[in-house]
């Protein structure tokens, strides 16, 4: 064990707070989504599976071995998505915190499987370029893990097809900045597409709804 008890306690609280903050900032619904923080080069703390963030306690977060995620201790059963968190941490030594979630606007692009172009200097700085879409796979599968790792190459965020978004930072604060800029950029992209397709100059949700109803309404 290459970390102190104090550091572990601090990071347990970081994970607990990250879940609550995802809920507060409307970046997740219910029990979906999970976060992880690195303890050392081969260990991380992750959120447990299937429990809501409000009820979770810092001591519930299991310590998971990055090189073999079937090995875990000191907490409740870890999220089935731990393999993705571990794969990113293994592939990217500079990454110490990861967030996987399903915010509304990111989910639109994940569902359409469309790459998000760079929408701002802030996105370029935080994400590192256009956000790609990883290959579709069922939750917990090798396909989903490998697709996410490939889409994250040289980036700090990517979409997971029909699933959500994955973000990675040097610490949890940075990972949150990344997920926020992704959500903001997706929203802006959708607005721009709506204006382009409708030929209007000013965006409103009503404009989008009217277009949708006229094209898909029965």
């Amino acid at each position, binding site marked *: 064990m290459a970390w102190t008890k104090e550091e572990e306690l601090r990071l347990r609280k970081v994970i607990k707070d990250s879940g609550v903050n995802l809920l507060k900032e409307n970046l997740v619904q219910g029990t979906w989504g999970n976060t992880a923080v690195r303890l050392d080069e081969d260990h991380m703390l992750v959120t447990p599976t299937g429990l809501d963030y409000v009820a979770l306690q810092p001591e519930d977060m299991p310590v998971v071995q990055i090189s073999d995620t079937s090995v875990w201790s000191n907490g409740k059963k870890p999220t089935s998505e731990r393999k993705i968190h571990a794969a990113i941490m293994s592939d990217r030594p500079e990454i110490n915190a990861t967030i996987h979630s399903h915010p509304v606007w990111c989910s639109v692009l994940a569902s359409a499987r469309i790459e998000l172009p760079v929408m701002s200097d802030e996105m370029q700085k935080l994400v590192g370029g256009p956000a790609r879409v990883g290959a579709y796979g069922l939750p917990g599968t090798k396909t989903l893990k490998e697709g996410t790792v490939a889409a994250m190459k040289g980036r700090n965020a990517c979409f997971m097809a029909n699933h959500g978004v994955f973000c990675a930072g040097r610490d949890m604060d940075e990972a949150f900045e990344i997920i926020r800029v992704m959500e903001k950029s997706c929203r802006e992209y959708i607005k721009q597409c*709506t204006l382009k397709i409708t030929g209007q100059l000013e965006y409103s949700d009503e404009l989008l*709804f009217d277009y949708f109803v006229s094209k898909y309404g029965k």
Partner: protein
Amino acid sequence: MIDNKTKEVVMQYAAKIVAEGMNGKGDRIAMRTKDGFCVNDASAALDTLKEEDLIELPLDTDDKDFAVIAKLFSKRPEIHALLYTHAPFVCAVARAKATIPAVLDDMTQIVGLNCKTCKSATTDDLVKGLRKRNSVLVPGGGALTVGRTMDEAYTCALVLDKASHAYVCGSVIGGNKIINCIEAKLMNFIYQKKYSKVNQENISKREGE
């Protein structure tokens, strides 16, 4: 008589629906009780809801305003909570009388394989539309969502709202890619029977059921 815990849960989730902007005209929030179900009175809007606006009705009520709720609680014993809400993107799909396909995997898990706009707002059509699903859209109206707990019904409404965003916006940015039916069924089964079971049991205790 409605117990204090039920009143507390209903008031708490009514406030959450309003905070999320999912409220609108004709909203309903209902929770199963020992003697029937607790629901907001037909004239009581969620944004001004008070505890005294909550009424309790038996499952065999003949009040037409609450016939759908009574029938659903009678037909589906696993359901303990029901919401009728009006999130704007959901209402856009209901206005188009469209079906939201399996655009997101959390939608397939909690809402169902798709979410249809039913033919009409009659009790029979709504109950039919909810078969093997936890949500149905009312043509020109909002969404009916149900759950094993109030928390699950609320989460279902949130996820449905997100799926509506994906479906509506997807039409503008290039079209949705749909999850295949077998994978959607598998995810729904695992979520309903395994993944969410412990959590829903914990929440059920918290909600005093």
